[in-house]
């Protein structure tokens, strides 16, 4: 998992979790794989990422060196800056570790670079149960005239 992906992942699929963002990263193995550098792409992607989340994530895995905490547009002409962003966003990879939901503490494992965001059978059943209860309420109880 690259940090660009981390920047877009939430655990809001969990019942009761509201934003589930950002997920905390625990890395036991980090790799760096080379990716072609395309400065135009980096310039276009910067406004689409949550910079604060990106910076904190980079910092939490020890890769924030030389990365400014806030981004200014004048940096867009600075090739060293763009290369740095490129490296941390697209080349640094969490190969093994886990992500933690900021609200529930639920952990999602990352193995061979692939985060597993699937719910367990019990979590799925619970979600379905809640949905049935909710549907039942809306279909049966909510339309009933209120008794005083």
């Amino acid at each position, binding site marked *: 998992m*690259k940090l660009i992906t981390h920047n*877009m992942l*939430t655990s809001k*699929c969990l019942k009761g979790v509201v934003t589930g963002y950002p997920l905390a990263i625990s890395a036991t193995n980090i790799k760096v794989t080379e990716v072609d550098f395309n400065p135009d*792409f980096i310039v276009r992607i910067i406004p689409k990422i949550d910079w604060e989340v990106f910076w904190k994530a980079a910092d939490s895995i020890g890769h924030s060196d030389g990365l400014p905490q806030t981004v200014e547009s004048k940096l867009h002409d600075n090739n060293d800056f763009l290369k740095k962003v490129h490296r941390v966003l697209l080349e640094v990879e969490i190969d093994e570790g886990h992500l933690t939901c900021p609200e529930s503490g639920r952990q999602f494992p990352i193995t061979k*670079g692939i*985060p*597993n*965001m699937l719910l367990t059978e019990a979590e*799925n059943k619970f979600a379905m149960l809640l949905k049935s209860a909710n549907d039942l309420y809306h279909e049966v109880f909510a339309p009933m005239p209120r008794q005083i």
Partner: protein
Amino acid sequence: MDTPYQNHIDKDEFNYVYEPAEDSFLLIDALEKEIDFLRKKNPLLCLEVGSGSGVVITAFAMAFPHCLCFCTDINHRACLMSQSTASHNKVFLECVNMNLVTCFVDKKFDVLIFNPPYVETESNDCLSNGIVASWAGGIKGREITDKLLDMVPKILTDDGIFYLLLIKENIPEEVKEIMLQKGFQANLVLERKVKNEHQIVIKFYR
């Protein structure tokens, strides 16, 4: 569009992961037909849901080197295979083991691609995450597709495009109607009759 190199895959893995078939190639051909339109759009981020072996998204990534590609699959072995197909073809691909797009934040993707499990079966409330999930579509073969349709408006950027493969049994007219309610126009991109299946690829846009 070039067909990605796939000889690295151990054939036995196709007991667990959907093997590229006519539907996969129809989708690739449909994207190829869209190439000029998509080049003009210059998409930044593209997502394939249910990438299986990864042939479709890898072909896309090869044709659009300036677009970053992502994929999800509910089947863990499919995720591994997609990842290795991308790396054997030397393209960037980020893969997440996920149910549809349920763990992505809103409005990031410019292109969304889905070749769903479309075969009519009994209702499948309880999702499988093995090979059965690659074809079992539940009622009308649409249960998984319909769940994704509800998420499309939020997952796409405002001018994002969604490519969906369906068969006639899925009642494409109904799908178009559902998407129209959500503010999406539909165009038929490509269709093909294979054996006794009539497959079509539809493009949705706002």
